[in-house]
């Protein structure tokens, strides 16, 4: 749907990343790049290493080999052993496969935590809630309200997230990531467990984010219809290796990919 002509220079490059847990190789010399403004999908059977890949980009795991480069201030910079906080600062946001919302907090507060990176008033000012602290709170509330409007969840603003149905929780998860105003948004199975209508809504939100905010999207998804429809380029992983990379048409015709998904007799 969204065409590749909007895609620009490489914004995120993964080069030769190898990640092992003890004897298990979760990722084996995986390389790919993500261009600015595109929708880049990562697919593969269960256990292929997709979520591990996102965790590496996020700084949750540190790979034994390989580098990750990210465009910051116009140049690709290599980053080593960044912790998740530094990664977040450099403009990468993330949603989670299994809902990782803050259950005890309202929808509004959940999305507000996405703004925490940008809120700097000190403890004492916050305790007194005077001047800058009160202003900051309102300023960021305005930004969050835009996201709430965008995701059409106005009615649930003050509801504790735990009480919302699954599909809406996924939306709040997306909202929390959007509140960070990321340049790259990593989505880990945003449509898992949804019905067709919910999937359509989610697709619309993802494409709108990509279009209107110019955010680069890296998407992990199992629904092939969705992947083939909305991606500009697709990476295929299997057992921690990259077995395919290209436009949806190229990937669909790739024999290795077909074998990985359908199985092949050895």
């Amino acid at each position, binding site marked *: 749907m969204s065409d590749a002509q909007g895609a620009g220079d490489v914004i995120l490059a993964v080069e030769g990343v190898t990640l092992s847990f003890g004897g298990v190789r979760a990722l084996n010399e995986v390389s790919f790049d993500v261009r600015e403004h595109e929708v880049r999908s990562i697919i593969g059977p269960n256990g292929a290493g997709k979520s591990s890949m996102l965790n590496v980009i*996020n700084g*949750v795991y540190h790979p034994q080999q390989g580098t990750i480069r990210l465009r910051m201030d116009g140049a690709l910079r290599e980053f080593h052993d960044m*912790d*998740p*906080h530094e*990664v*977040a*600062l450099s403009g990468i*946001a*993330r949603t*989670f496969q299994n809902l*990782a*919302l*803050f*259950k*005890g*907090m309202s929808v509004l*507060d959940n999305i*507000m*935590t*996405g*703004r*925490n*990176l940008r*809120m700097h*008033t000190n*403890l004492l000012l*916050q*305790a*007194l*809630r005077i001047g800058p*602290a*009160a202003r*900051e*709170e*309102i300023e*960021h*509330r*305005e930004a969050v*309200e835009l996201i709430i409007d965008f995701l059409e969840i106005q009615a649930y603003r003050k509801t504790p997230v735990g009480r919302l149905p699954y599909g809406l929780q996924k939306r709040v998860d997306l909202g*929390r*990531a959007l509140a*960070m105003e990321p340049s790259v948004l990593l989505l880990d199975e945003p449509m898992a467990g949804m019905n067709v209508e919910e999937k359509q809504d989610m697709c619309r939100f993802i494409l709108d984010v990509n279009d209107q905010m110019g955010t680069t999207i890296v998407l992990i998804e199992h629904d092939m219809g969705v992947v083939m429809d909305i991606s500009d380029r697709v990476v295929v992983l299997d057992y921690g290796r990259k077995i395919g990379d290209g436009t949806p048409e190229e990937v669909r015709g790739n024999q290795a990919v077909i074998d990985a998904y359908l199985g092949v007799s050895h």
Partner: protein
Amino acid sequence: MFYRENGQYKTTYGADQQMLPILQDRIFMAVLLLFAFIGVPLLASDYLLLSILVPFLILALAATGLNLLVGYCGQISVGHAAFMAVGAYSAYNIVLRVPQLNFLVVLVLAGLIAAAVGMLFGIPSLRIKGLYLAVATLAAQFFMDWTFARVKWFTNYASSGSVSTATIDLFGWRVDTPARKYLFLLAVVTVFTLMAKNLVRGHLGRAWMAMRDMDVAAEVIGIRPVYAKLTAFAVSSFYVGVAGALWGFVHLGSWEPLAFDINLSFTLLFMIIIGGMGSILGSFFGALFIVALPILLNQVPAMLGLPLATATKSHLEVMIFGSLIIFFLIAEPNGLARLWAIGKEKLRLWPFPH
């Protein structure tokens, strides 16, 4: 019928983010505060002031502090009485060595020292959580118990190990009568409660709750665990340290090291569990429950005219108290604050629940 927000339109985010967005709540709070500041000192007996309200206020402050750490940030601590002790002994030593300092300054300094010690003992929380962290904080309790019992400098080489304090003098206003003690505490507790409420509504409070609810996601969103956890330990210990200083100077007057033993730590934990984790209001409910209920239970046999021996009465008191705690935990695991919230929710719909 009268308690609802219908017709109270918020036109700015500032108005929507008030501490008490509903008008009726604000009126109720104003009336309650007026009554507490003016009505109570005039009406209450010295007994009520000294043996219920004074300990209630101080313990509510300590419970609020503990709740910031356990209820809001999700880091369990069973050593908070140790930080109360740090506050109390710090205040004692500051007053002893620099007598010209105003007590309010002493209070803040005592809190800051407790905060520093709290942060030190909070460092294990960066690596461990849950029950293991509880055991690590237990170390704080034993270490502080030992320090104040053995290091004689802290108790000014008193042979008995117990210390006693002079009357607090605030700019010539001596905190000596029960009513004055109560008013002083009420003022301090009101200010600190407001600040706690503001903190948990701000971005620091959200960072704490994020750590509590889902620490990995919080990190990926850009919350630094070191900062969130250590500030929670610091602020919590500050509150508890101030409460400890007040407990020593206003409530006890003189005390020995055992005054801040592990029983007090458990009492604080009970308060926030019964009152409600993650609720400032719950800390007050919990403190009231723990302070007032034993006294009430003590009075009941006399009111019913039952001739019970004193020993039997105190045994009964403990037994009934224990079973009430269990009953409350089964009936409402989220504490009295949750019951209060449900009550308010019902009241909003009453008398037309559909």
